[in-house]
């Protein structure tokens, strides 16, 4: 496939942005929790699931998106949100629990919701897949050619909602792309101990839809497969299931001792770090030179820093605002 240069550059930039964001969140998260780790302490309290290593899954779809497309992601949502273009400042502010955050500090890192672009995520495994089916119903009703994308882990593929969602989307021929981020682990449980077959993409046959395996943690491979799946959905040809073999470079959550993965496994992952592989490829192919790369890095680092600074400069919500936003005001009245 001939990939436009700007798509390659865009994917690379976004990968850098994601990685930088995750690194900075990690630093700040751990900073004030160590040596005596207290999950409730620090600038970012609570659980923190970071996606370093899974950037290819996020950026591969990016060039194929258009305004109005809707995405649901998981408890590990930052990479997807960033790739879709969710406001980075408001996202950072939410993670830091500030009044200026996407959810005014009410949601936190597992509950990032954006109206434009339409993004949502969730702390419950498998919760987002049915929602994507519903987004697609709305698109069909409105007659747009938008697509809904549902991201989920390989662990989530054993949850009942996977089955129900794929059947519904297939039955109703809806514009949904289901993307399984197979990082081989669900917390400590390896896929071999959770999944009766090797590739979830093979489960697509149970719904009569295409199932495609992307065996490499490579943005270009994801780009190609996602391009087809999204195009298919846009044309009204129905849903697809895409599975990407990817790597979670760090622990399940920050603070995870990660003792369930061998040192060898972890070293192998580091060796095949997708950001490094991709930059090497772009350099080898002459698409980017060293100064391009430095420029991109600087720009992305700046953008991330600006977002974090925005968060840090923002006020915490007033305690009593906890009572607000439970219910919306009625818009329609008599």
């Amino acid at each position: 496939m001939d990939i436009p240069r700007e798509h390659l550059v865009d994917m690379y930039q976004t990968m850098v942005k994601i990685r930088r964001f995750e690194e900075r969140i990690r630093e700040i998260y751990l900073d004030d929790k160590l040596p005596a780790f207290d999950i409730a302490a620090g600038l970012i309290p609570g659980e923190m699931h970071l996606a370093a290593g899974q950037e290819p899954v996020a950026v591969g779809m990016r060039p194929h998106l258009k305004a109005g497309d809707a995405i649901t992601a998981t408890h590990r949502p930052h990479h997807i949100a960033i790739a879709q273009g969710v406001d980075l400042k408001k996202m950072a502010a939410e993670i830091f629990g500030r009044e200026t955050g996407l959810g005014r500090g009410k949601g936190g890192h597992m509950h990032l919701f954006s109206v434009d672009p339409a993004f949502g995520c969730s702390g419950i495994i498998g919760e987002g897949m049915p929602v994507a089916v519903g987004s697609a119903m709305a698109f069909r009703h409105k007659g747009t050619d938008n697509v809904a994308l549902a991201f989920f882990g390989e662990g989530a593929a054993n949850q009942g909602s996977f089955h129900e969602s794929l059947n519904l989307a297939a039955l109703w021929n809806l514009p949904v792309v289901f993307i399984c981020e197979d990082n081989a682990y669900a917390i400590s449980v390896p896929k071999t101990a959770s999944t009766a077959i090797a590739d979830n993409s093979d489960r697509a046959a149970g719904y009569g839809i295409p199932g495609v395996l992307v065996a490499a943690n490579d943005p270009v491979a994801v780009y190609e497969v996602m391009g087809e799946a999204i195009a298919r959905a846009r044309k009204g040809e129905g849903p697809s299931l895409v599975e990407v073999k990817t790597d979670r470079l760090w622990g399940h959550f920050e603070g995870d001792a990660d003792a369930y993965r061998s040192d060898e496994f972890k070293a192998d992952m580091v060796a095949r770090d997708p950001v490094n592989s991709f930059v090497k490829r772009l350099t080898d192919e002459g698409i980017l030179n060293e100064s391009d790369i430095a420029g991109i890095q600087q720009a992305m680092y700046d953008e991330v820093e600006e977002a974090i600074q925005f968060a840090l400069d923002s006020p915490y919500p007033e305690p009593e605002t906890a009572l607000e936003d439970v219910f919306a005001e009625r818009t329609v009245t008599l």
Partner: protein
Amino acid sequence: MTDRKLTTQKAIAEAIALEMRGDDSVFVMGEDVATYGGIFGATEGLLDEFGAKRVIDTPISETGFIGAAIGAAIGGMRPIVELMFVDFFGVCMDQIYNNMAKIHYFSGGNVSVPVVLTTAVGGGYSDAGQHSQTLWGTFAHMPGMKVVIPSNPYDAKGLMTAAIRDDNPVVYMFHKGVLGLGWMTPNPRATGVVPEEPYEVPIGEANVAREGTDLTVVTVGLSVHRALDAAEVLQEKGISAEVIDLRSLVPLDRETIVASVQKTHRLLVVDEDYHSYGMSGEVVSTAIEGAFDYLDAPPVRVTTPDIPIPYSRPLEQWALPSVDRIVEASSNLLVAG
């Protein structure tokens, strides 16, 4: 204004039809809602008028299609989605309470989820322990969704209209015994005058279904009928019972409860839901918090005991709140204190 009478079931279907005519974003989905018209007739006639694109039969995948209703609502639609019996909530509660009810909050008010979740509740016809529950206490306990329970055709239409127009998730529970279905034990209170035009019954306002002076009976659903019947028996005994139909558990109209108890000085709560940790305790607490000094006797609860609802008729009829139990408890309450 005519004197046209409808059953509760037809009143619900009419409210939906009127909103669907006026608002293209309203649609209906659920098991057997289209061809069958809903097992309890709440969507009767809609398929014929609106077609299969707006009245959608689903597979038996409650998590899937209720979750889909959420996505559709976020995307600008106003879905009405049916969970056939409330008893089935356990296969899909995550989508209901963790997702539908919380997204607005998580989003800091930016995202709205205007879903109406309809569901049939209640026992009394020997449908046993997985088809007879009310479980309104369970739904009302969890924040972020309104919970309404009409007891008559007028309220059923008005509450449905209000629910569809509400920007929040509304759980709309219809008791099988108040619907006026031909195949249920006949219930004259299930038919009543219903205006033909659309109107709203505001969500969160209780209805004083009968005024009285000696005690307050607070209840909801089919038990409103039982309480009204009991009030007539009590009247003959010289006891004047005020009957409050809560109509909505979330928001709960605590003011009306408190005002009535301040007037009558005695409270009986009738709750078809399980006794403990539910509606009855909340209503008692509300009265205590608002009218402690007015009470002449401790409030009393007539409820379904903490047992699965039994099948066999003598067991079931004994377990559910009945006119007899209400009359007896009211009479005892009047001499207590």
